[in-house]
């Protein structure tokens, strides 16, 4: 019986840095390091981050921590850079031509953008769920099994991995009798839970969610929100949402971003305030945060 939270059998549970820089870094890279940290320690430590697309500075002056086993929400108006920032955590911006990151993001104390870091392994540990559910054009079973199989899981373990992942994503009861049917036959909400199950099947550390409920009806949204609360016992969640009431309901900490227009008319996103969600929504420190969350400014 495979415990989906233990390292997948057959895969080396070692570094995500392809060549250890030093003993310190190698030690930090192992699964072991994660176990030694206590809950609510920082998983990511961001310092003076800036993101550029070519000459265009999309984001500036971002410093914050993402704490373990917490839900951190990014809110703010369109164009404020919150999705850009989210994609920094799993190096998805690497795939955009001309994108570059300045400043620093440490992941469990290691520089995420060090040239020796393997971005593929990063994306295994830091999973992502997108706004529009995007299951593979495969069966429900194969959607979940794909990642573990690629990572070297034994055929005999796949059934358990699939069941555990679907259970964890609160989808098992609805699909257990049709695992071989196409994922496209599921409703939008079910497809999104399938995508969450797919992300957690490869035992990530963090799950990033980019507007995961925007395409869903209120009932499906409620189920995903309930699931997010349950997942924090095992994972760290970072969620971008344009629905600040959702951020208020589901998150432990909230970061508010806004857009600044410079002299040349360029819009650059910046972090205005970050803090405990209850404090942000009852007594924010910055008047710009208050103006946004009370709806006085779009």
């Amino acid at each position, binding site marked *: 019986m495979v415990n989906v939270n233990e390292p997948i059998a057959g895969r080396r549970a070692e570094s995500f840095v392809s060549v250890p820089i030093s003993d310190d870094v190698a030690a930090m890279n192992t699964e072991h390091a994660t176990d030694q940290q206590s809950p609510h320690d920082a998983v990511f430590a961001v310092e003076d981050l800036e993101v550029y697309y070519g000459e265009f500075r999309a984001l500036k002056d971002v410093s914050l921590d993402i704490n373990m086993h917490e839900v951190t929400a990014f809110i703010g108006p369109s164009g404020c850079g919150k999705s850009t920032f989210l994609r920094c955590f799993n190096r998805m911006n690497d795939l955009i031509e001309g994108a570059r990151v300045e400043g620093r993001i440490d992941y469990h104390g290691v520089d995420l953008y060090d040239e020796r870091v393997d971005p593929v392994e990063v994306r295994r540990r830091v999973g992502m769920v997108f706004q529009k559910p995007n299951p593979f054009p495969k069966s429900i079973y194969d959607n979940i099994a794909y990642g573990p199989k690629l990572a070297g899981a034994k055929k005999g373990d796949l059934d358990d991995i699939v069941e555990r992942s679907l259970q964890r994503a*609160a989808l098992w*009861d*609805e699909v257990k009798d049709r695992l071989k049917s196409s994922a496209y036959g599921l409703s939008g909400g079910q497809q999104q839970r399938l995508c969450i199950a797919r992300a957690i099947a490869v035992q990530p550390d963090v799950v990033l969610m980019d507007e995961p409920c925007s395409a869903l009806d209120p*009932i499906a949204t*409620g*189920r995903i*929100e*309930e*699931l997010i*609360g*349950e997942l924090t016992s095992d994972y760290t969640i970072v969620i971008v949402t344009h629905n600040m*009431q959702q951020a*208020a*309901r589901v998150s432990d900490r909230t970061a508010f971003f806004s857009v600044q227009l410079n002299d040349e008319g360029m819009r650059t996103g910046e972090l205005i305030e970050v803090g405990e*969600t*209850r404090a942000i*929504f*009852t007594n924010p420190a910055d008047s710009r945060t208050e103006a946004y969350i009370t709806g006085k400014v779009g």
Partner: protein
Amino acid sequence: MSNDETRTQFQTLLEQLRTDLVHMGAMVIEGISAVTEALLAVDVAASDQIVTADDELDLLSLEAEEMCIEMLALQQPVAIDLRTIVTDLKMVAEIERSGDLVTNIAKAIPRIQGVELEPRLRGLIDRMREQAVKLFGLAIDAYSEGDAGLASALGDLDDRLDDLHNDFIDTVFSSRTDRLLTTQQAVQLAVIGRFYERIGDHAVNIGERVQYLVTGELPEHAGAQRARARREAESAG
């Protein structure tokens, strides 16, 4: 997770708040009995303890109020959830004020030192205690069970407490006339009687809030309707 359950964390918080308010109500009920015992014995040491114990109720009231505000900010409650939180906010005020009235009785005890309370007065104080405890207990039960029927019966019980209060005042002043009490002592006792009567009023208010929670209606709606009708008649005429 049952696939049908959502917002379970929010519902858990609401239940916790209800438990906390019931606990606070129980503290007031215990306080009414304790302060009456201290009053009948004119026990100043006991009265000091009761005054200090009110700090705990103040702390719990503050925490409950903060919880209500947090839920309003973070959970966007509507319908029954909104009425629940609004009711709970009002309940905190009623319970906390009732605790203050117990404290006020306690603070008055040193001012009647040296008084020999005659049997008629002792009897009436004890009956006011009994009625106030019963009334407040039923109000908290009505809140805990969401029982609008029980809540609507509290007005009649409060009438009984009001009668006892009136008898008490009459007896205090006849004791004054018989020179069994100084003017100062008579006034203090009359004020103490008023405190018991006010506790009963708060219990009735709690009952009204429970009716609002269950039905969405308040007694004030009847008077408000009459006022609206008069307004319309005046603007038409």
